[in-house]
């Protein structure tokens, strides 16, 4: 069966287990696209500066030294700067930002060693020098092929440096707590008892609905609220006639559940 994520499990010598979600081709491509745009802007900026210098320096230099320098030198300076940005962008950012570049940060990706430790200059240098091999002929044909075969979605540079790219764990968007605060409209003594029997998975379904409802189409939102309410009532064998909407009822349930869990 197809699974939602591919994970990397790491066991420390102390038998503590970590699980990382591995980044796939899509998120990495998106990050690369962002980095390409940023690199392009860097390079454009460098060329603009070099061109301005080449034009303005000889005019404003009273000593006349710059007038003697051939303009091809400025061009060479620009090409050198381009090379530094092109080669150094990934290397420097990943080494200094602990495995992240602007694109990776935006996509919440991070390069780590296969043992879970952060990467250093050496790993960053190896994986980014070998990027040229992955990039052979452009558009990463070799990198794609190797990633396709790799169980950890590693390209050649990753294999050589012993690194993987992971998705940083994201916290769920915090729900508006005020909405979930129980208003005590449900005056059912047995309700808290019922709510305490809710399994975490069931609670997650209700909570997910409350988190995502704003994005839902009105009909489906009402329908789902009603479905959840009916299921809960049927499960608990209750039918409270209270002046609450389905969604308010679910908010009450989640509010009470979270309050009781917190108390425990």
């Amino acid at each position, binding site marked *: *069966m*197809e*699974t*939602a994520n*591919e994970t990397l499990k790491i066991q420390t010598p102390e038998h503590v287990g970590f699980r990382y979600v591995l*980044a*796939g*081709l*899509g*998120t*990495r*491509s*998106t*990050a690369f*696209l962002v980095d390409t745009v940023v690199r392009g802007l860097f390079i454009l900026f460098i060329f603009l500066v070099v061109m301005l210098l080449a034009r303005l320096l000889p005019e404003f230099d009273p000593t006349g030294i710059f007038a003697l320098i051939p303009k091809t030198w400025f061009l060479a300076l620009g090409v050198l700067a381009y090379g530094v940005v092109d080669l150094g962008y990934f290397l420097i950012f990943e080494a200094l930002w602990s495995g992240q570049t602007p694109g990776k940060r935006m*996509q919440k990706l991070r390069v780590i060693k296969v043992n879970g430790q952060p990467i250093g200059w050496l790993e960053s240098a190896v994986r980014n020098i070998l990027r040229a091999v992955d990039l052979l*002929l*452009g*558009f990463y*044909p*070799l*990198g*794609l*092929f190797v990633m*396709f075969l790799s169980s950890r979605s590693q390209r050649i540079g990753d294999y050589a440096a012993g690194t993987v790219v992971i998705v940083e764990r994201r916290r769920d968007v915090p729900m508006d707590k005020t909405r979930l605060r129980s208003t005590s409209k449900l005056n059912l003594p047995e309700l808290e008892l019922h709510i305490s029997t809710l399994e975490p998975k*069931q609670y997650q*379904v209700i909570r*997910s*609905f409350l988190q*995502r409802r704003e*994005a*839902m*189409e*009105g*009909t*489906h*939102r*009402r*329908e*789902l609220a*009603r*479905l*959840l*309410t*009916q*299921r*809960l*009532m*049927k*499960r608990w064998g209750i*039918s*409270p*006639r*209270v*002046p*609450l*909407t*389905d*969604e308010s*009822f679910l908010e009450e349930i989640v509010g009470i559940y979270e309050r009781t869990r917190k108390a425990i």
Partner: protein
Amino acid sequence: MDLGADDHVDTTSFELTDFDDTHLNLDEGRIAEQNLLGDKVSSLLTTRGVPMTQSAAGAEAKRFAISLTGLKPGSSQEDVVFALQRIFPRQTVEQIRGALTKLPLLLTRSATEEQAKKVKNFLESKGAVLRLIGPAVLKGSTHPDSAIRPTSTVVAPPRQSETVGAAAAQQGDRPYTGVERRVKPRVHPGIGIHPMGIGEILDRAFRLLRQHFLLFFFILLIPQGSFFLFNKSTQIFLGGGAQQNMSAGMGLGLGVSFILAVMVMLILQFWAQGALIHAVSETYLGHETSLATSYGAMRTRLGRLLGTMFLVGFVIGLLPALLGIGMAIAVPILATMGFGGNSTAILSVVMVFIGIFWFFHLLLNWLLVDKVVVLEGKAWRSAMRRSKELMNTRTEKGFWKRPKNKAGLILLLGFLIGLGIRLLFQVPGMLAHMFVPMSFAGLTLTMQQVLNVIATSLAAVFTAIAMILFYYDIRLRSEGFDLKAMAEHL
């Protein structure tokens, strides 16, 4: 009853697709004779059905009229509106809302007994109060108005939300029959599906491709391979001296064969496209499928898919064609009027930009048409409307999170990844050109062509999978069907 997407229908729940106009025969078309109430309201919702003529008096006697007389106390007007919209897909929600302000509302007078019962049960479950007028009454009434107008109209004040108790009381112990406007995806209980970002969609597409590589690849390889074989055999036939000694009859035969072959290829291509949509959908939702099952599932929907895709292609292609014709007429006229080259050039650039904008606008609006046809059983304008509706749904804030922009980015990334795949398959050919002797040039060329076919199939598969996941992502966000599936197991 063919629901169009039977594989996805949960048989335990009442499916709105039962009320598709092809089954219920409720739609516009017989306005004149169905305008029973003679007012603006009743003319909004009209019926088509089997045409009722004088000669069809016998058939008329077996037909029922259905009138919506009010809303149950505590029911939601919006539920009824959306339920009616399912029955009358050509009416907009606003039109139906307007119609509901003036009750009673005649829905049809040509429903069969079975249809009438279905409509009654369905709409009553949504909170509508209905009145059925049997054939005897209809037959006997000189003016149907008198027969169907209720003596008293119960219109409960519509409310924004309903109470838990009332909702539960309404439903009782009946199985859940929610407003399922679309075909309900059949989700495997153990599968993890959730809304995704662009990167995640592409990640998952890549993972799906890797896990079901042979299935997806062979689905698309069939038409591509057939086209390649046909091309090759034609080349061999024409290259074998037949071209030189060809008579007029042979030439005509060859031309007809070529046209037939192109038609077969097109059919095969769309068949494969539909089969791929089916296969990806099944695997994404956690079910097993096979090459034969995927192709088999498309047999009943192929006609609809072909027709709808041709319609979409025609409409999208029409605009550039019209602009081209417009330019062809305008340029000489402008020239005779003395406008110089600059004016003509500016006009051409403006027209080209308009053409490109509208082309992409329409293309993105109808990007999901094929998925809608295959997975929801809709067709023609209905599928186009649904695709447009999905592509214009706002489920997230932010410019780049609009469905059209997301789709554009996915297509761009898919294109770039596709380029990488194509380049990869160029490498063996390049190496062969460098190292294999010239005497094997024909073999090298054939190998390169075969690799091109494989590369094209792979690149197409990847983007296609990503777009199917994108379709599901919109539905997950706006309809929450993953939550519905999980809620069923609460």
